[in-house]
């Protein structure tokens, strides 16, 4: 067989085209799911709200100073490790002395029970969350539908900008592999890996399954009232109208959504 120059160039050109087209063909089929994604939906009976918020009734909460039920329940539900030292500590709910929690309360004379108390602290699920603004990967973001400040641990790259930005110390970094330090693993919730930041998520998984947050359920005094701030008939909203409440560091303009009823 004799191939002249013209024929050779034609063949070579066609071959090159075919090779070049291959990645385009592969691109097209990359993400197509075998089923209709528009059908993918929520659980049957999720708890929904326009703006989740929590009020903590300090009169009830401070009845038993030693009570740690909410913290324990949260730790169990979310597989939170106990390292036994404050340097590595990972916390979603934790207790803090009143004067450390409310640094901008300038009154020298505060009601004695409150002044010497330890209060439970959480992620405040701010309306204007500074952690979200600084996250370079959108691993943390505010859910538009209900205001929860969420974490996506798949995306977190561990830069800790959010920890620097959060004025409440609500975020913890996994300096070490947390799994060996979890007392009893709850198989219904993932653990985290070394190098990601974590915090309270208002129990979003439980909410979508139709359950109230674990801490709210665990509180035997029913001191935590969880509900929709946008709903005028909700318990939180009514309580906030009846009782005087304070929030942590309101001057910063982050609009925290955890209210302490004094």
């Amino acid at each position, binding site marked *: 067989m004799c191939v002249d120059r013209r024929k050779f160039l034609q063949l070579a050109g066609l071959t090159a085209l075919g090779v070049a087209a291959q990645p385009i063909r592969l691109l097209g089929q990359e993400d197509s799911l075998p*089923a209709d994604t528009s059908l993918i939906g929520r659980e049957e009976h999720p708890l929904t709200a326009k703006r989740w918020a929590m009020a903590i009734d300090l009169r009830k909460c401070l009845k038993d100073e030693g009570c740690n039920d909410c913290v324990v329940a949260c730790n169990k539900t979310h597989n939170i490790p106990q390292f036994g030292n404050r340097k590595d500590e990972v916390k979603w709910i934790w207790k803090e002395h009143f004067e450390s929690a409310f640094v901008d309360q300038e009154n020298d004379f505060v009601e004695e029970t409150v002044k010497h108390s330890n209060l439970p602290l959480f992620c405040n699920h701010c309306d204007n969350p500074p952690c979200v603004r600084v996250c370079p990967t959108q691993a943390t973001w505010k859910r538009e539908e209900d205001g929860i400040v969420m974490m996506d641990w798949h995306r977190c790259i561990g830069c800790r900008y959010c920890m620097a930005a959060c004025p409440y110390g609500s975020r913890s970094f996994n300096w070490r592999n947390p799994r060996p330090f979890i007392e009893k*693993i709850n198989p219904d919730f993932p653990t985290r890996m070394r190098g990601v930041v974590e915090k309270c998520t208002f129990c979003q998984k439980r909410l979508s399954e139709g359950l109230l947050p674990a801490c709210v359920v665990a509180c035997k005094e029913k001191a935590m009232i969880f509900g929709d701030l946008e709903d005028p008939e909700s318990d939180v909203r009514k309580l906030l109208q009846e009782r005087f409440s304070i929030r942590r560091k309101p001057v910063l303009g982050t609009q925290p959504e955890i209210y302490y009823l004094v």
Partner: protein
Amino acid sequence: MYDAGKVIIGLIVFLVLITFPTWYNVATGKATYVPELEKAVRGDHCVADTTYMKAKHMDLLNQWRDMVVRQDKRIYVAADGTKYNMSLSGTCLDCHADKTKFCDRCHAYMDVNPYCWECHIDPKEYK
């Protein structure tokens, strides 16, 4: 060609050496080795057909992850209308009960190291 004999012998030695891994694997039977995956212990079909799952399960899992975490949607409706909870350690491991005989065997063969299990839990390990 000068020194044709030497050149040709050299070429043959070169070819033998460079193809050594291939024919060595063929000779020892390693070339035809395919990891044997454990059959699902429960259920008669997967969330998608086997060919798709073999090639694209990682895409499906990525989609599931995004739907659940970013959009709070947890119920997957398969092509045949069956509803599934989009959960790796729940739904997948429900049928493929032993991940060491299913996920790990193939991943080891393919030499891929997904880090799903650094966070997600194999419920069997923590009964």
